[in-house]
C-alpha cells in the first residue's frame, strides 16, 4: 500500500529509480568512442602463480595482443607457431560456415531453432585450444566453437540440430543443446548459469582425487546475474578449485543490454576482486589474447593456485537466435561500428602480416569449410530432418528418465504406443 508522502519524510529529497538504458536504439548512429580501448601489448602479465591481487588491475584494463598494425605485441603474446594460428583460424571459419548453413536450414524448415556465435568465435575456439583435451568443458548455449575446436564430427552436430534418428541425444533436446562426453563437453542446459556450480564441483572432484584435469565454465554476461554465478565463485574461492569461469560479455542478452547485469557500475572481471580470486579482462575478438589469458588461467589452476574469472569483451554481431529480431531494440550500426573488429579478420590479417597467409589462401579455406559443412549436412539429412518421421523409435521417449523403467513409466509407455496404433493403424 502506498504511504502518504507528506508525513515524516517531508524534508527529505525525493527518491528516483534508475532503469538502465542502452546508448543506442534503432535508428541511432552507434558511436563507441566512450569505450576505453588500451594499446595492444600495454598490459603487464603477472606470473601464473602470483597472488590473486596482482591480477586485479587487469580486471578493469583490457588485455590485448593484436595491434592495429596486425602484429602481436607485449607480454601476453602467446608466441604460437603459424600452424597453430592457422588451425585456430580454420576452426573459426568452420564454425562461421556452420552457423550460416544451420541458420538457413532453420529458415528452410529443417529444424525448429538455431543460434549463431558470429563475432564471438574466438571466445570459444581460442580458449579451447589453450586447454587440454582432458579438461572438462561446461558450456553455455553459444559455445559450438568448443566442439569444433575438439574436432567433434559436424554430422553429429547436425543430427542433434535435426533431432533425427541418428541424433545421439535421441531427439530430446532443443537444437544446439549438445552433450558430447566423448570430447569432454558437458550437457548444455537451457537454464542459465547452472553449469557454473557444476564446473566448480567437477574441479573439486578432480582435486579430491588428486587428478590433473581442470574444468572450464562459460556463461554470458547477462546470466552472471543468476545466483548460480555467485554460488560457483564462492565455492571456487572457498575450496581453491581448479576451475576457470569465462564470462562472454557480448553486450546483449536477447534485448537487454549488459547494463541489466550491472555493467554500468563496473566490469564483469571485477567481480573476481570481491571473491579474492584472480581476474582478467580480455579483448574477446583478439584470438591471441583469448588464448593467452585462458592458458594463463589453466596453468594457474593446474598448479593448485586456484580459480580465475575471465571476462571476454566482445560483441554479439547477430540476433540472439532464429527467434529474435535485433533490429527491434538496437541500432543496426552497432556490429559495424564495434571498435574491436572481428575475431576472424583480425587473426587473418595477422597471419598475412607475418607472411604466413594470403587472402587467396583464405578464400580457398572458406570454400573448403563451406564444402565440409555442406557434406556433413547432406550426410545428416539422410537420417532425417525435424518433423519428417525419421526420429528415434517411439519407446525411447521413456528411456533414461531413470536407469530402470519403473511401473508408472512402463504403463505410460504402453499408453503412448496404443495411441500411436490408434492414429496410424497400418504403421508397424
Amino acid at each position, binding site marked *: 500500500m502506498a504511504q502518504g508522502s507528506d508525513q515524516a519524510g517531508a524534508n527529505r529529497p525525493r527518491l528516483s529509480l534508475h532503469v538502465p538504458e542502452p546508448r543506442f536504439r534503432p535508428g541511432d548512429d552507434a558511436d563507441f568512442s566512450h569505450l576505453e580501448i588500451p594499446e595492444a601489448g600495454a598490459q603487464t602479465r603477472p606470473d601464473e602463480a602470483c597472488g590473486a591481487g596482482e591480477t586485479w588491475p587487469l580486471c578493469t584494463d583490457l588485455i590485448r595482443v593484436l595491434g592495429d598494425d596486425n602484429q602481436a605485441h607485449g607480454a601476453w603474446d602467446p608466441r604460437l607457431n603459424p600452424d597453430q594460428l592457422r588451425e585456430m583460424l580454420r576452426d573459426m571459419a568452420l564454425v562461421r560456415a556452420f552457423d550460416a548453413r544451420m541458420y538457413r536450414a532453420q529458415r528452410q524448415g529443417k529444424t525448429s531453432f538455431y543460434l549463431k556465435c558470429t563475432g564471438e568465435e574466438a571466445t570459444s575456439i581460442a580458449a579451447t585450444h589453450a586447454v587440454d583435451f582432458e579438461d*572438462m568443458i*561446461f558450456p553455455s548455449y553459444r559455445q559450438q566453437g568448443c566442439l569444433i575446436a575438439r574436432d567433434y564430427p559436424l554430422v553429429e552436430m547436425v543430427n542433434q540440430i535435426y533431432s533425427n534418428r541418428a541424433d*545421439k*541425444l*535421441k531427439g*530430446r*533436446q532443443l537444437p544446439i*543443446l549438445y*552433450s558430447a*562426453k566423448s570430447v569432454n563437453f*558437458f*550437457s548444455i*542446459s537451457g*537454464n542459465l548459469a*547452472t553449469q*557454473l*556450480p*557444476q*564446473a*566448480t*564441483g*567437477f*574441479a*573439486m*572432484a*578432480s*582435486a*579430491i*582425487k588428486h587428478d590433473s584435469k581442470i*574444468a572450464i565454465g562459460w556463461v554470458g554476461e547477462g546470466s552472471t546475474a543468476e*545466483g*548460480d554465478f*555467485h*554460488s*560457483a565463485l*564462492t*565455492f571456487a574461492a*572457498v575450496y581453491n578449485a581448479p576451475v576457470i569461469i569465462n564470462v562472454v560479455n557480448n553486450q546483449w542478452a536477447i534485448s537487454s543490454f549488459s547494463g541489466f547485469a550491472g555493467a554500468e557500475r563496473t566490469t564483469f572481471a571485477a567481480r573476481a576482486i570481491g571473491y579474492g580470486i584472480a581476474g582478467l579482462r580480455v579483448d574477446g575478438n583478439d584470438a591471441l589474447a583469448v588464448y593467452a589469458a585462458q592458458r594463463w588461467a589453466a596453468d594457474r589452476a593446474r598448479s593448485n593456485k586456484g580459480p580465475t574469472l575471465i571476462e571476454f569483451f566482445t560483441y554479439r554481431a547477430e540476433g540472439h537466435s532464429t527467434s529474435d529480431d535485433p533490429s527491434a531494440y538496437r541500432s543496426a550500426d552497432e556490429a559495424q561500428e564495434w571498435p574491436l573488429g572481428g575475431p576472424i579478420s583480425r587473426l587473418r590479417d595477422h597471419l598475412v602480416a607475418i607472411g604466413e597467409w594470403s587472402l587467396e589462401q583464405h578464400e580457398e579455406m572458406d570454400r573448403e569449410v563451406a564444402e565440409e559443412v555442406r557434406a556433413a549436412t547432406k550426410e545428416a539429412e539422410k537420417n532425417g530432418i525435424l518433423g519428417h518421421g525419421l526420429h528415434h523409435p517411439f519407446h525411447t521417449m521413456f*528411456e*533414461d*528418465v*531413470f*536407469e530402470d523403467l*519403473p*511401473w*508408472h513409466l512402463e504403463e505410460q509407455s504402453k499408453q503412448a504406443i496404443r495411441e500411436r496404433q490408434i492414429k496410424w493403424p497400418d504403421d508397424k
Partner: protein
Amino acid sequence: MTQDDPISLADAPATSMSMIEAINDALDVMLTRDPDVILLGEDIGYFGGVFRCTAGLQEKHGKTRVFDTPISECGIIGVAVGMGAYGLRPVPEIQFADYIYPGLDQLVSEAARLRYRSAAELIAPMTVRSPFGGGIFGGQTHSQSPESFFTHVSGLKTVVPSTPHDAKGLLIAAIEDNDPVIFFEPKRIYNGPFDGYYDRPAKSWKDHPDAAVPEGYYSIPLGSARTVREGNALTILAYGTMVHVAEGVCREKGVDAEILDLRTLVPLDIEAVEKSVEKTGKCLVVHEATRTSGFGAELSALVTERCFYHLEAPVERVTGFDTPYPHSLEWAYFPGPVRIGEAIDRLLEAS
C-alpha cells in the same frame, strides 16, 4: 565396491540404534566401501552436523571426503551435479528440508534431467539427505514436509524412512542408486518413535524391535513398502513419522487396520498398495504435509483408479492443514491422533 556382497541379515549381529546413529552407520559403511562416496553440507564436517548424523565421519575418513560447505543450497546441489559428472557419488546434506528451495533448480532442471538430456552419457548419482517434518517446535522454517515438490518431478526418487533399521538399509540403497534420490529424514523420530501423543513422555528407540540395526552392509530396495501390521478393517498408507502416529491410534482404539509404510514414494510399491486395499476395501492416507496437491492426493487418485470396485467407502486423507506450520500452535496443525481417529471412525462406519 571394495567389499563382498551383502551378508545375510539373519546372521548379522545387531545393535540397538537411534535413527541418527543408524544414518551415521550407513554413511560410515558407504564411505568405507566406496572411495567415490563423499559427504558435503553445512556444519557436517568437524562438528558432525546439527543433528549429529555425520559425527566422527570427518575424523575417520578425512576432510576431503566429509566437509563443510558455504551456506548455499544452490551451490551444494550444483557442485554435487559436477562431482557426479566426474564420477563421484556425492551425498549432500541440506540442513533442513525447509532450506532446500534455493537448490531446487539444480535438482529439478539439472540433477533430475541429466540422464535424460544426455541420453545416459552423464548421470547425477547423488543422494540428498535432509531432515524434514515438524513436531519439534521448529516454527514454519524448520518443520516443512516438501516431498510432493519432488515426487512431481520426473527423474527424482523420493525416500522417507520411519525406523532406524530401514533408515540404514534405505540410505545405503539410495547412495548406491545411479539416479538422484531425495532422502527425507523425519526429525521428530530421530531419537525415538513418536505416536502423536505429544503430552505423554517421549520414548527412545532403545529396545524397539525396529531399532535393532544389523552391523555392516545391507540394503533395502527402493520401491518396496513395509507392512507394519496386518489387518482387515482398513488400509492405512503412511510414511515417516505418521507411520508411528497411525500405529499408536490403532493400538489405542483397538482397530484392526493394516498399516503400510510406503518407505519410497517414487518409485511407489503399487502392488503392495493394491493388494492391501483390495483386501480391506477401505483406505486412509496420512501425511504431515499440507493437504492441497500433497502426495496424499496422488495416493488417493491411484487407489481410486486402480481399486475402485473393491472400495466400500471413499478414500480418506488426513494431512496437515493448508497453512504454514505455526510455532505455538504446532499441535493444532499436526495431523495427530484425534484427526486420524475421526477419519478411521468415518471409514469404519461406512458400508
